[in-house]
């Protein structure tokens, strides 16, 4: 991996909640699991030897069930939670070595956060909420309100500047939360289950807003979610946590095609494979043109099926983003790709 593109590097991060966490740390390093640790030393294992490289300008998704430590992990990145041991490098400075003044500087300039329950300031207007990160840096009011205004417009809340958060719907509140995080121009955006509290339609709308913004801004985003569809939709890379340990960290396609263990398999069991697996994951490598239509590498199987149904016997040609032919797919590959791998069970009902 190209190491100069890595913006945040998490090395051997451990977090143990409870008294006597230092002695518990040794137990964990000797391989004690979460349940046993709780029984033996009354400490809760939050994070267990997390190693993660987060690339600049990409969306890194961290996924896991509740209690898997994903919210704990994201709060380590801006030190809302202090680790028990380990290091977090940002541009080669260890964030954990910052003193409280430097930490405040770091939070003001380099990272901003969007919260699951919005966490807006109920006593401040939309404009004041969005401008908050700038206002506390003692930036003059006309300057921060101008910037805040711009972001309010960008998330589509034009005209709501003087409203209080309590007067807005959930989706609108999270737009305020997003605008507040973007207003500081921080390079890194932490999103802690930012869209989980929204209903499905609004959630999908917010995901699109985020992707639109990302196309334009190229921020480094760490996105926490428990929803695999969401992770696949927006993630450039997905890390899966279980009981505080990292189970898999890879390309989204890789997770579906090669789940690391049963836990990950369980996660991907119920997804619509035809809608997420892309051509490049199942194609046969070749650089000669086939008899059927030509499609892009990242087209999902469902769409290819649509095309192939006109001429089932003709394999389609696959080309990469630059138009170079990279492979072909036959109908039988397509069926094979959509079929659930044996390891995931048959799950046939009725």
């Amino acid at each position, binding site marked *: 991996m190209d190491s100069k593109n890595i913006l945040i590097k998490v090395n051997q991060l451990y977090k143990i909640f409870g008294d006597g966490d230092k002695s518990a740390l040794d137990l964990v390093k000797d391989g004690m699991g979460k349940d046993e640790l709780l029984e033996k030393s009354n400490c809760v294992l939050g994070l267990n030897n997390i190693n993660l490289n987060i690339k600049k300008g990409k969306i890194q998704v961290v996924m896991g069930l509740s209690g898997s430590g994903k919210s704990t992990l994201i709060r380590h990145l801006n030190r*809302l939670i202090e680790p028990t041991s380990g290091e977090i490098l940002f541009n080669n400075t260890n964030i954990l070595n910052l003193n409280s003044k430097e*930490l405040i500087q770091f*939070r003001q300039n380099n990272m901003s956060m969007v919260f699951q*329950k919005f966490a*807006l300031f109920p006593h401040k207007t939309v404009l004041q909420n969005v401008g908050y*990160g700038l206002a506390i*840096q003692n930036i003059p009011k006309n300057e921060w309100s101008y910037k805040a205004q711009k972001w309010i417009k960008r998330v589509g809340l034009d005209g709501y500047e003087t409203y209080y958060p*309590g007067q807005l*719907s959930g989706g609108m509140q999270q737009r305020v939360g997003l605008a*507040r995080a973007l207003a500081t121009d921080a390079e890194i955006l932490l999103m802690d289950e930012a869209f989980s509290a929204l209903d499905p339609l609004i959630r999908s709308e917010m995901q699109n807003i985020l992707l639109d913004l990302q196309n334009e801004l190229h921020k480094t985003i760490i996105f926490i979610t428990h929803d695999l569809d969401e992770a696949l939709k927006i993630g450039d890379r997905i890390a899966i946590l279980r009981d505080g340990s990292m189970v898999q960290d890879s390309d989204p396609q890789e997770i579906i095609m090669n789940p690391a263990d049963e836990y990950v398999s369980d996660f991907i069991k119920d997804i619509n494979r035809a809608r997420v697996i892309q051509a490049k994951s199942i194609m046969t490598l070749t650089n000669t043109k086939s008899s059927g239509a030509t499609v892009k590498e990242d087209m999902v199987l469902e769409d290819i099926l649509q095309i192939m149904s006109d001429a089932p016997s003709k394999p389609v040609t696959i080309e990469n983003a630059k138009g170079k032919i990279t492979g072909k797919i036959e109908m039988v590959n397509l069926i094979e790709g959509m079929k659930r791998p044996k390891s995931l069970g048959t799950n046939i009902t009725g």
Partner: protein
Amino acid sequence: MDWFFNFPDMSRSDLREFKKTVDFAFTDFSRTYGQGIEEFFEPLLMFLVWFEKLFINTPWPVIILSILLIAWIGSRSILIVVGTFISFMLIGYFGMWEDTMSTLAIILVATFLCIAIGIPLGIAMARSNKVQAAIVPVLDVMQTIPSFVYLIPVVMLLGIGKVPGLIAVCIYAIPPIVRLTNLGIRLVDKDVLEAADSFGANYWQKLFGVQMPLALPTIFAGVNQTIMMALAMVVIASMIGVKGLGLPVLRAISNQYLALGLMNGLAIVILAIIFDRVTQKFGLRMQKYRNEGKD
């Protein structure tokens, strides 16, 4: 088996000695430091006297107009303003104007003192569990100890007069504001504080920008309670030389003057109701943002 039926208490002479020791120790203390303490409170006394004179010497129409204005600013309710007007006209008509002004003056000063001391104390309690653990028992004592008991040392130290009266009122009235400031700050949503943290707010920015504004309605409930309790102390404070509506009540009790007692007692009640309604309405208006739904 004597100890089983009779409590093995201290002998009478020992007990007498013990009480004497305590009394003498405190008398010595007040002889040595009484003067200094009195001088320390001198500016407060001057201010109290000046403030009371201001209330009494200002022509009554000016006072009524100012009170009505404050009631309007606080409550924005015509009903309360009209009620206040009628109440004060009645108080004046029944010859209690001057006493009412004295009471108003001492209540306002007591409330101001309680706020000035109580809110910072509440903030300190909210910041640290240790401070909270230390202050809560003191507040418990202040609220439950019969007020006559702490009147004794106060009078021994400072004699009879306005300042000891004021101190007695403050001891009785300060606990609610301290408690509710602490509670209000502690009840502020943790998520919101985390958000402030994540944007790099420092302690003071969090305190004055997030915690205090969100705790304000609770703090204001504390101010309201403090005023109510200060009013309740007016009669007892009059026993140690505080002028005002309490003094006629005291006289009425000792001489069985029913009408006098009722009139002055009701005047205190009226003051209490006006203070309560105005501050409550004001408190409600401060949290307007909470009550407006999205539709």
